[in-house]
C-alpha cells in the first residue's frame, strides 16, 4: 500500500475520534511545551546576560586578579603590591597596565543625601592609556587631573557634582573593628559620560580618585586588580599565560571571553538538567500513547480482520498504526511548540519581577559584574530547537507505538473477524 494512502487512512481514523486524538497527544504537548519553554527561556536569559557582559567586553583588555588555581578558590596571592604592574608592563604585546583598588561605600553629602557608590583608586595617567579611547567627559578632561587631590565622577542620571566643584562628603570606612566617618573634600576634575563597565570595572556610579589618595584615605597599600591593555586581541591567551608565569601561577587572568564562556557553560549545565526533567514528561507521554494505542488496537480488532481478509499484508497494518502514531507526534509537537512559546513569553514577563534583586548589578564589592541597566527577559527559540522538539515528538510517539502496532499486525484474521 502506498504511503500516501496509509497516511490518508490515518487522517480518517484520527478525525473519527477527535477527543481521544487530542487526549492522546496531550502528553506529547506537555512534554514538548516544557522542552520548548525551558530552552527558549534559558536561551533568552543566557543571551541577555551574555549581551550585558559583551557591552562591557573589550577584546583588548585582560583583568588580573589575585588568587590561583580556580576562579572559586585555591591558594595564592590575596592582593597585589603597587609595583606588581611592572611585572606585566614588561611583557611583549602589553600596551599599558592599570592597578586598581576599589571599595564599595556610601557617601553622605552636606545636604543630607546619600549615594551608594564605589570609590576606585587609579593612576590617572594609566587610566587614560588603558581606557582613554573609550571614556569621554561630559565636563572637564584628562589635563585637569594632574593633581592628586582631584577626582573623576562616573556617570549618574542625576549628577551629584560638576567639574570645578568641590565634592565634600562623609565617607564611611572600616578601620579595624570600628566604623569611622571621614570627612573628604576633593575637587572634581571631570565628569564622565555613560560608559557602562569594562570587564569587572564599572565606570558609571563610581568615583575615581588617585591611587595615592586612596591608599592614604583607606590606609591600604595594596591594589586588588590589574587591568592590562594589549595590542592584539588574538594574543590574549598567550599573554595571559605569560602573566601567570610571571606571578608563579598565583593569579587569575581573566581573558575577555572568560565570563561569557563561564556563563554559557553554567547555562548549558542548567539547560541539560531541566531538559532531563522535561524528557521525563516525554517518557510519560510515550507510555500514555502505548496505553491508548493498545486499547485502540483492541477496539479496532474487527477492522484489522477486515483489512486482512481483503488482502492487507502484515506490514500494511503495521505501518498504518505507526503512521497514526507519527501523526499524533506531529500534532502534539506542533501544539506543544506553540503553547511552549506562549508560556515562555508569559514567564519572560513574570520572571524579571522575581529577579528584581539583580537590578543594579550582581554586587558592588571588589568584583562586581552586571550593569545598572534594567533586566528584561525575551525568550529566544533557536530553529534547531524546533527541529529537535519535533523529532522527539515523532520519535517518542512512533517508538511507543511499535509494540501495539506489531500486536495489530500479528492478529489472526479469522479470530479478528469474529471479535465483537
Amino acid at each position, binding site marked *: 500500500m502506498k504511503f500516501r494512502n496509509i497516511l490518508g487512512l490515518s487522517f*480518517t481514523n484520527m478525525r473519527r475520534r477527535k477527543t481521544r486524538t487530542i487526549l492522546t497527544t496531550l502528553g506529547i504537548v506537555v512534554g514538548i511545551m516544557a522542552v520548548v519553554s525551558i530552552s527558549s527561556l534559558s536561551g533568552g536569559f543566557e543571551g541577555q546576560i551574555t549581551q550585558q557582559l559583551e557591552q562591557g567586553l573589550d577584546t583588548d583588555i585582560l583583568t588580573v586578579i589575585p588568587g590561583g588555581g580556580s576562579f572559586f578558590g585555591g591558594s595564592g596571592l590575596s592582593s597585589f603590591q603597587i609595583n606588581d604592574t611592572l611585572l606585566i608592563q614588561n611583557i611583549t604585546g602589553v600596551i599599558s597596565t592599570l592597578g586598581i583598588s576599589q571599595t564599595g561605600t556610601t557617601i553622605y553629602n552636606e545636604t543630607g543625601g546619600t549615594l551608594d557608590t564605589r570609590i576606585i583608586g587609579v593612576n590617572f595617567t594609566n587610566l587614560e592609556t588603558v581606557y582613554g579611547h573609550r571614556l569621554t567627559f561630559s565636563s572637564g578632561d584628562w589635563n585637569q587631573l594632574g593633581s592628586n587631590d582631584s577626582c573623576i565622577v562616573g556617570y549618574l542620571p542625576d549628577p551629584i557634582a560638576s567639574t570645578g566643584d568641590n565634592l565634600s562628603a562623609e565617607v564611611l570606612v572600616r578601620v579595624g573593628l570600628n566604623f569611622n566617618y571621614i570627612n573628604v573634600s576633593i575637587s572634581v576634575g571631570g565628569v564622565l559620560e555613560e560608559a557602562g563597565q569594562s570587564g569587572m570595572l564599572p565606570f558609571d556610579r563610581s568615583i575615581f580618585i588617585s591611587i595615592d589618595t586612596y591608599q592614604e584615605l583607606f590606609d591600604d597599600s595594596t591594589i586588588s586588580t590589574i587591568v592590562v591593555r594589549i595590542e592584539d586581541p588574538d594574543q590574549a591567551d598567550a599573554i595571559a599565560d605569560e602573566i601567570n608565569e610571571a606571578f608563579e601561577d598565583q593569579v587569575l587572568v581573566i581573558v575577555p571571553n572568560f565570563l561569557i564562556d563561564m556563563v554559557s557553560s553554567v547555562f548549558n549545565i542548567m539547560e541539560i538538567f531541566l531538559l532531563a526533567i522535561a524528557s521525563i514528561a516525554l517518557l510519560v507521554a510515550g507510555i500514555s500513547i502505548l496505553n491508548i494505542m493498545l486499547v485502540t488496537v483492541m477496539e479496532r480488532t474487527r477492522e484489522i*480482520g477486515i*483489512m486482512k*481478509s481483503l*488482502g492487507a*499484508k502484515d506490514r500494511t497494518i503495521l505501518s498504518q498504526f505507526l503512521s497514526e502514531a507519527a501523526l499524533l507526534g506531529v500534532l502534539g509537537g506542533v501544539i506543544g511548540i506553540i503553547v511552549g512559546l506562549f508560556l515562555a513569553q508569559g514567564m519572560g514577563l513574570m520572571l524579571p519581577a522575581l529577579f528584581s534583586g539583580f537590578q543594579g548589578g550582581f554586587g558592588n564589592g571588589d568584583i562586581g559584574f552586571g550593569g545598572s541597566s534594567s533586566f528584561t527577559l525575551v525568550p529566544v527559540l533557536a530553529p534547531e530547537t524546533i527541529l529537535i522538539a519535533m523529532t522527539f515528538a515523532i520519535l517518542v510517539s512512533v517508538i511507543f507505538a511499535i509494540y501495539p502496532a506489531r500486536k495489530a499486525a500479528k492478529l489472526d484474521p479469522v479470530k479478528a*473477524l469474529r471479535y465483537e
Partner: protein
Amino acid sequence: MTHPQPTQPEETLTALFDYQSRTSKYIIEAKNLCKTYQMGPVEVNAVRGVNLQVHPGEFLVILGVSGSGKSTLLHLLGALDQPTAGKVFVEGLDLSTLNHNQLADVRLRRVGFVFQFFNLMPQLTAQGNIELPLKFADVPSTTAHGRARDLLTRVGLGERRDHVPSELSGGEQQRVAIARALANNPRIILADEPTGNLDTKTGAEIITLIRQLNKTQGLTFVVVGHDARLTTVADRVIEMQDGGFIGERAGGGQERV
C-alpha cells in the same frame, strides 16, 4: 502454524497462477482437508477430511446449520485460515507452498469475501470501502476511483457512494461489500451467509444480484449458509454436518455451461 519459506518471488506468483489455472481443471480443489481448533481443554474438529472440487464459473452452495464447519471451510478455501491437514488448491496453486505475504496476495487478487455482517470499514464511505483493496494492490488512485464508481453503479448504488455504512441499509451495505469483493477482479467469490442478516425481500435481491454476477461475469461462487432460496439458483448443493459432507445434489439453477 508454520509457513514454508518463500518458494518464489511475488512477481512470479501471478505467472505461476496463470499457468496453473490453464492447466488445472478445477478453480478450487480441497484434498482431505482438516481443521482442528483448541477451545480451552476441548479439541474441536471443525472440518474433517473434506474433499471438494469446484469448476470455473460454478455456483456452489454449501448448506449446513451453524457449527457444521461451513464457515471454517470457506476461510480455508480463501487462504484466510490454514488447515491442520490436507491441501487447498486455488486456481491450481497449492496454498501450503505459499508464505504469509503470498497468502495475503491470494486474498487480495484471487478471491473476494462477502460476509454475513457485511464487514465494511465504518469510517470509510461506500466509495472508500471499495477503493481500500485497490489501494492495498497499489492501483493508481484515479484508476481506483473510477473502478470503485463503476462497481457501485453495477450493484445499483451509484447515488450512495459518499455515504458511510451507518447511513446505508443492510441491503445497501451488502451490495457495497459485494462490489468491494469484486474490486481486484478475482475469479472466485466466497460468501458466508450473505443473506443471513437481511430481511426476506432484501435477501432475495442479493441472491438475484450474485446469481446475475455469476451468469454475466462468469464468476465462481461458493456460498455457505442455510437460506433455502440459495439452492434454487445454485448449480450444485452440498450438505455439510459436523465438519464433513453428508450429501450432494444438483441445484435449481440452470445447468452449468
